[in-house]
């Protein structure tokens, strides 16, 4: 699916977001920081889908918002088609935003219940200065058709639609300004499986038709595997492993990725197996462990892991792993059928 090209559509370097924790009512003072995203780098090529996976609180949604500059990063660099978005003025930003859109998780709270479907879908264009008129209505009808809804639905309100249909409306809204890059933030997570499959297929069709690039953020590794070209795994604000989909699922190198894959219940009773248990919980992002952030739960952790942060190493072409012991940990997939 990925088209070869020289400049990536999106390049993210050393992106960091720390949220301050303040105390005091009149005089706020900083008492700590949540290190939500810490020194994250990746790129997305034209027409490519990068899957971003991780458990709750790992910083994947914050990353999605940072690359659209919906929240301001603490430091780092985000370039879209070679243009640095973090140094852009508000006017330039508005122009750039035509090219980058987002689809949210919750199809119930992300649509304004007081607006008609037409108003919702065209809102991004009105923000850009377009004026309502018959031409715009035609456009809304066309967009509804594109996402598989009836054009006559433009006059309806969100409550008249099911979850899957609402998600289609959210997608139509994202497509309205003809973006090249769309962040899908858990876009199918709230949907039932039969409807989820419809939306996943729709996203793939639209990608082909409009040559879109996706940052597909999700916690469901099976969906991510299906839709992505490459996958990045996050843990406590860091990307621990990044590779093309085939090698990440067939030969994961980072112990966290291995544990994550081993934890998924597989819908095949014949693959029922003793799981490699990952003990304990995710530590707090306010006080992440020193050294490698995974060391408190890692079966391979040594003293080195407890003191020094592992650098991101390219273990194989395009396969980046942040683990001190990547050379010695066997790259086994926990998903291979046993016996």
């Amino acid at each position, binding site marked *: 699916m990925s088209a070869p090209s020289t400049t990536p559509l999106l390049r993210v370097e050393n992106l960091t977001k720390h949220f301050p924790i303040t105390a005091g009512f009149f005089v706020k003072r900083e008492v700590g920081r949540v290190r939500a995203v810490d020194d994250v780098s990746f790129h997305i090529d034209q027409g490519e889908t990068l899957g971003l996976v991780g458990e*709750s609180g790992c910083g994947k949604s914050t990353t999605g918002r940072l690359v659209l500059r919906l929240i301001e990063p603490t430091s780092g660099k985000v370039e879209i088609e070679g243009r640095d978005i973090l140094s852009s003025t508000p006017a330039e930003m508005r122009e750039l935003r035509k090219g980058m859109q987002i689809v949210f998780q919750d199809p119930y709270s992300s649509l304004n219940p007081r607006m008609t479907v037409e108003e919702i879908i065209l809102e991004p264009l009105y923000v850009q200065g377009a004026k309502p008129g018959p031409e715009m209505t035609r456009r809304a009808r066309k967009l509804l058709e594109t996402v598989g809804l009836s054009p006559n639905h433009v006059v309806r309100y969100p409550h008249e639609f099911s979850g899957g249909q609402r998600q289609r409306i959210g997608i139509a809204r994202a497509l309205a300004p003809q973006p090249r890059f769309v962040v899908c933030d858990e876009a199918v997570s709230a949907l039932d499986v039969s*409807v989820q499959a419809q939306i996943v297929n729709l996203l793939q069709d639209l990608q082909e038709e409009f040559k879109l690039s996706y940052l597909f953020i999700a916690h469901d590794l099976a969906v991510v*595997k*299906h839709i992505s070209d490459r996958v990045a795994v996050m843990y406590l604000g860091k990307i621990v492993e990044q590779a093309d989909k085939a090698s990440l699922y067939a030969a994961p190198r980072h112990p966290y990725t291995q544990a994550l894959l081993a934890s*998924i*219940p*597989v819908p095949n009773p014949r693959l029922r197996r003793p799981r490699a248990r990952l003990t304990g*919980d995710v530590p707090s992002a306010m006080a992440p462990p020193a050294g490698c952030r995974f060391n408190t739960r890692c079966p391979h952790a040594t003293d080195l892991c407890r003191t020094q942060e592992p650098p991101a190493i390219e273990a194989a072409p395009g396969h980046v792993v942040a683990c001190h012991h990547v050379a010695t940990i066997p790259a086994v997939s926990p998903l291979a059928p046993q016996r």
Partner: protein
Amino acid sequence: MAAQPLLSVRNLRTVFGTMQGEVTAVDDVSFDVAPGEVLGIVGESGSGKSVTALSIMGLLPQPPGRVAGGEILFDGRDLLKLPKSQMRQMRGSAIGMIFQEPMTSLNPVFTIGDQITETIRVHERIGAAAARKRGIEMLEKVGIPSPQRRIDDFPHQLSGGMRQRVMIAMALSCSPKLLLADEPTTALDVTIQAQILDLLRDLQREMGMAIVIITHNMGVIAEFADRVAVMYAGRIAEEGPVGRIFDAPTHPYTAGLLSSTPDLVGEVPRLRTIPGTLPSLYELPPGCRFAPRCGRRVEACEAGRPATQEIAPGHFAACIRAREGASA
């Protein structure tokens, strides 16, 4: 299965009164659970799986909910005919339950010790010190580190996974014969989900209890259940041993559900989908409720409710074309 099922639900019908009239959330549902067996109930939102569990526990919000018909036989006694006081005695001692939301199922103003010992002391004549000792044992059993200290924690001091462990400790503190687990791992992250499922499996073997696990996740069913009932729009579409349901689903809905689940092992270019959406309970189709979305629909499907047929020993499907072989 066994000669005497532990739980036998017969023709259960649960309705809800609404402004637009009465809707039937669970319509003529029957199934058995043998002692020590794990039955999975799987379905999408609105299929009636949670309402089935609440009906069994007598925990339906009344009104608007009401069991309008059927029997729920537990150890041969009809739970629907029990007086409230006896039902209350039954809940928590013979039948335990855990819910989806570990964040909201615990009372935030009491310590977890208070909440566990309350359960024990309601059901057994036992002193405060002995109940506390049992509470600590239970916390240890569910894998809570340093239980002597943790028993005095408040729920907000625990993570989601730990809270679900506490819920399990409470549900199992009186050694129930049956545990109803309604989406017990849905709110949890995948690594924590694996821990909780392992724990439930170990405790189930150790204590020999039966479990009814309700989930929307086919993966959880495949790893955890012995038998599975697939629900659609208030009815059971298919029921059978877990191996058969996954290998040879006969109901088109089960087949559709399985093929629209993205696969971690294999690779398909495109997901198979089930067209359309779940029907509204206000405007249910006549005949088979899946017919409007079904690729194998024939005219007879819309004529009347499809009878449940036994395809193979213990394998039932409510589809008139079930005997034509496994649906693709």
